[in-house]
């Protein structure tokens, strides 16, 4: 048991013993030693909770299943969630969009040393300056101070792709999207994707056919990136769950970069600020 795991378990125990929450969402090890989400509902199960760099999902996305009352006259369940700094930004977004009430969530924020996908450090984590969650109820500290990397351009790979010709970019995305099997795991893992009925599955209007062809896949991914414009927190859950290892984060980071340049907005900074695409400023004239 590591230093971090010990604190996570103690915090979870405190919440469950005091009956402050009905469930703690965290990670456990499966039989093959990989991390997976776990829902702890009783104190004797608390020791299943673990932490490691491969805990790369955004557990805030599970709050959508717990935001309604389970039955008549029953209160909305209260939940504690283990979150990285980028994940807690999603909580700010969800509170702003009135999907989650602050009083129903307890945030166990973990000081982040960077998370890994398939054993290698995530691109966002290489340049991430934010190692302490901007929002938390309990802060889980690391044993040693976390080294913050030197600030560099976090969008270096995006800027490089911007220099390519349209043909090169199309060839790149065609080969990437060609692998997509349209399992929609990226959507399911995303805290920002909570539409009751997704555009990709709507039958009336029938936006996009179920064909496994590049244009249809492109429509789905461009649509998702657009719907997450100004709402993506860059947690990388979509890339982590993608069974075909498609670099979906590139689309989202491209949009995030443009949003930052045009509107000086970063998702999840506060509960008050709305994503820029849901509001407007009559005085601005954008370059279309």
């Amino acid at each position, binding site marked *: 048991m590591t230093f971090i795991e010990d604190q996570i378990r103690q915090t979870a125990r405190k919440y469950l013993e005091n009956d402050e929450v009905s469930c703690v969402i965290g990670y456990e090890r499966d039989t093959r030693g990989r991390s997976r989400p776990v829902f702890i509902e009783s104190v004797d199960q608390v020791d299943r909770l673990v932490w490691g760099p491969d805990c790369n999902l955004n557990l805030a996305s599970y709050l959508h299943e717990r935001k309604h009352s389970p039955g008549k006259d029953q209160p909305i369940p209260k939940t504690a969630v283990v979150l990285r700094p980028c994940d807690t930004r999603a909580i700010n977004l969800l509170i702003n969009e009135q999907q989650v009430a602050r009083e129903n969530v307890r945030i166990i924020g973990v000081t982040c040393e960077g998370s890994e996908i398939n054993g290698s450090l995530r691109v966002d984590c290489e340049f991430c300056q934010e190692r302490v969650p901007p929002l938390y109820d309990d802060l889980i500290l690391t044993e040693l101070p976390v080294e913050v990397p030197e600030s560099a351009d976090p969008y270096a790979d995006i800027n490089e792709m911007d220099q390519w010709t349209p043909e090169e970019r199309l060839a790149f*995305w065609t080969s990437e999207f060609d692998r997509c099997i349209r399992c929609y795991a990226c959507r399911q893992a995303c805290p920002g994707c909570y539409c009751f009925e997704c555009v990709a599955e709507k039958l009336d209007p029938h*936006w996009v056919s179920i064909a496994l062809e590049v*244009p249809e896949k492109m429509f789905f991914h461009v649509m998702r990136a657009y719907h997450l414009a100004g709402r993506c927190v860059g947690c990388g859950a979509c890339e982590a769950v993608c069974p075909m290892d498609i670099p979906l984060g590139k689309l989202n980071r491209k949009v995030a970069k443009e949003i930052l340049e045009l509107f000086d907005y970063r998702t999840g900074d506060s509960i008050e600020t709305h994503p820029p695409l849901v509001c407007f400023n009559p005085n601005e004239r954008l370059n279309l």
Partner: protein
Amino acid sequence: MSESFEPKIVGFLCNWCSYAGADLAGTSRMSYPQNVRIIRVPCSGRVDPLFVVKTLIDGADGVMVLGCHPGDCHYQQGNYIAQRRYSIMHRLLEFSGLETDRLFVDWVSASEGKKFSEVVTSFTEKVRNIGPNPLRKKAESGIDVLEEVSS
């Protein structure tokens, strides 16, 4: 690129300004390329950027979205919202491999019949130069939506 390439262009025109501007161009006997298929919409804010993606995926060579000038929106704010949306969508389409000139967003008022014919002419020329939509080849295996609409 063969010389006979005629681009198919879909234009989403706001009912209050640009559609009236197109009407004025017609009644004033101004000529503009017949490549553009016009769809009348209540407001440029009604044109979900997904319409544009859908149109391009279904094989259009270019899409134009025309609305009222900022400040002149019949619904007060529609074109401000459209402005923000398309500033992002344009860059996203560019990033995903489509040429910048396949999407054109501008403001044309009801009195600007001349401007309408000019922007349609110049946009058609640009699309003609960059050639057919690379996604079109695949789309042709299905129903040709644009043929259905224009026939």
